[in-house]
């Protein structure tokens, strides 16, 4: 890629794309902070962020809207990066944490925990989500690998749909049997409503670690996304790299579910859009995916708060509205959108 940057006059240097992305992100963040059911101005937002002043609007911004948008940023980035890594690792353009059983697994684990350990604190629940996400994915890939020569993109998606349905049924069954449906639903479909600073303190470190580690292995991921044989030939320890990246996916998806519940299609969509702009090198894809994912989630959350104000429209529904047609386009084009 550096070859290109040096001598190819046609391509836009990555740094410009990155700066444009960051500017768009800042703009979206400001819009998300200012627009909402309650009347606020840019000045209020500024005061809420920088001063220690206290009035009703500023407190509302600081304690309700600000943590909520921060949650949107981190969850958006986490899900998008998890999707990008999954797509590269499995060379499956349809990979997405929601489609491959991660979020359903985390959901089921969450329901089980609420049922049996009602006193579980937020940290425990987060860890449980990681375990559930890992179990969900392993089940999906287990089924996908059952038939020899398995692992075709669509078969994995089908296995993911089946396992997700099963795990959702488990979660609902537990919810009904233990009469905790409402609590479970609060978690799994609540979106970013009611996110607190305490929750963010638990979740954000996991997401930051996950994204940082993914950046460190982005070059290896690029080569792995071409072909495993090529990766081995070039001297990669692919077992180690795949294991590390798998753990990263679990961290990112599990943390997202712990915070906002199920969210499908974001991880599918964003990497495809980013690839159309920056190409196939994951050193560029991953940072841009993180930024774009954050922008998307901020946008979705802002729409969710405003479309039918003062009522909330679920963010997952808004993302699915865009995501499903996108999914169909990718299937139709055999894996490539926008290119």
């Amino acid at each position: 890629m550096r070859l290109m940057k040096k001598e190819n006059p046609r391509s836009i240097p990555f740094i410009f794309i990155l700066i444009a992305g960051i500017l768009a992100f800042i703009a979206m963040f400001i819009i998300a902070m200012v627009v909402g059911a309650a009347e606020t101005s840019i000045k209020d937002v500024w005061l809420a962020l920088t001063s220690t002043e206290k009035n009703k609007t500023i407190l509302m911004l600081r304690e309700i809207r600000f943590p909520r948008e921060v949650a949107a940023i981190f969850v958006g980035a986490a899900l998008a990066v998890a999707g990008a890594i999954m797509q590269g690792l499995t060379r499956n353009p349809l990979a997405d944490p929601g489609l491959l059983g991660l979020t359903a697994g985390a959901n089921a684990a969450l329901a089980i925990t609420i049922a049996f350990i009602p006193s579980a604190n937020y940290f425990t629940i987060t860890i449980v989500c990681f375990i559930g996400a890992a179990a969900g994915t392993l089940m999906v890939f287990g089924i996908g690998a059952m038939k020899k020569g398995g692992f075709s993109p669509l078969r994995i998606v089908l296995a993911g749909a089946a396992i997700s349905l099963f795990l959702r049924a488990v979660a609902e069954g537990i919810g009904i049997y233990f009469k905790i449906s409402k609590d479970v639903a609060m978690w799994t479909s609540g979106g970013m409503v009611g996110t607190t600073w305490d929750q963010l303190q638990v979740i954000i470190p996991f997401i930051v670690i996950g994204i940082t580690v993914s950046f460190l292995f982005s070059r290896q991921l690029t080569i792995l996304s071409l072909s495993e044989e090529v990766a081995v030939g070039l001297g990669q320890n692919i077992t180690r790299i795949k294991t590390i990246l798998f753990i990263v996916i679990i961290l990112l998806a599990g943390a997202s579910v712990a915070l906002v519940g199920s969210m499908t299609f974001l991880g599918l969509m964003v990497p495809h859009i980013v690839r159309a702009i920056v190409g196939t090198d994951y050193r560029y894809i991953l940072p841009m995916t993180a930024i774009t994912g954050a922008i998307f989630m901020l946008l979705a959350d802002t729409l969710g708060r405003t479309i039918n104000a003062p009522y909330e429209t679920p963010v997952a529904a808004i993302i699915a509205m865009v995501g499903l047609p996108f999914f169909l386009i990718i299937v139709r084009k055999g894996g490539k959108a926008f290119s």
Partner: protein
Amino acid sequence: MTRLYTESLNIGYGERHIVKNLSVKIPDKKITTIIGPNGCGKSTLLKAITRIISQQSGTVVLDGKDISKVNTKLLAKKMAILPQTPESASGLTVGELVSYGRFPYQSGFGRLTKKDYEVIEWALDVTGTADFKFHPVDALSGGQRQRVWIAMALAQETDIIFLDEPTTYLDMAHQLEVLELLQKLNKEQERTIIMVLHDLNQAARFADYIIALKDGEVVKAGTCEEVITRDVLRKVFQIDAEIGRDPRTNKPMCITYNLIKGDYKHEKTAVPVYSAVSVNY
């Protein structure tokens, strides 16, 4: 002394044995070709020697060491592999793809050094792909694309290069182009080249050493004069071949052949497709 050899190699999946107790020596600085019917274990052997798959027992020895115990990045500086029909390079440019050949030499975030750029330029020049440097790999023709992948292997700066059927899906002219490039690399730079080929006459024309495999065992290994014979081809492919001489290269060649009636029962021993008579490219 031979740098690379295998010792009683057994490869298989579960009950199925693909390569059986196989010991071969790969001559240094020569072109070695592995031939044999479909499913005889050619590609499997190549993958085991290059540590892409692991064997059930036996060893692959390079420079006196069992390769399964050698650091994989260190191995990548000694041998490069071009897998069978590499998957599409979705969106990468030629220059980018070739630059990945420098991976074994990089650490950390992978900034290319001046030396890396020189090697990449050289690899592009030698394979005649420098003109396409900024073109997407997927937009090239089959022959060009194959040369780009070879350029990537060359950028690895290894003494040994493995290729699994490098001429598959190429037309006759492009097949010859790729083989001549490999021959040039062997002659001018003394690189050891090991490849799987389907076409016997190409094997005879370009290889210094041929290993004929059947059912995971070596039927015959030696020069083309020793291997491309009526007797060996009968055993390996179950064909009755007419062996003549290539009028231009004076190498042995299979001019025409028939199936041996009654002997042909093995479902996997499909007949390789030759363009029979006077193939002079």
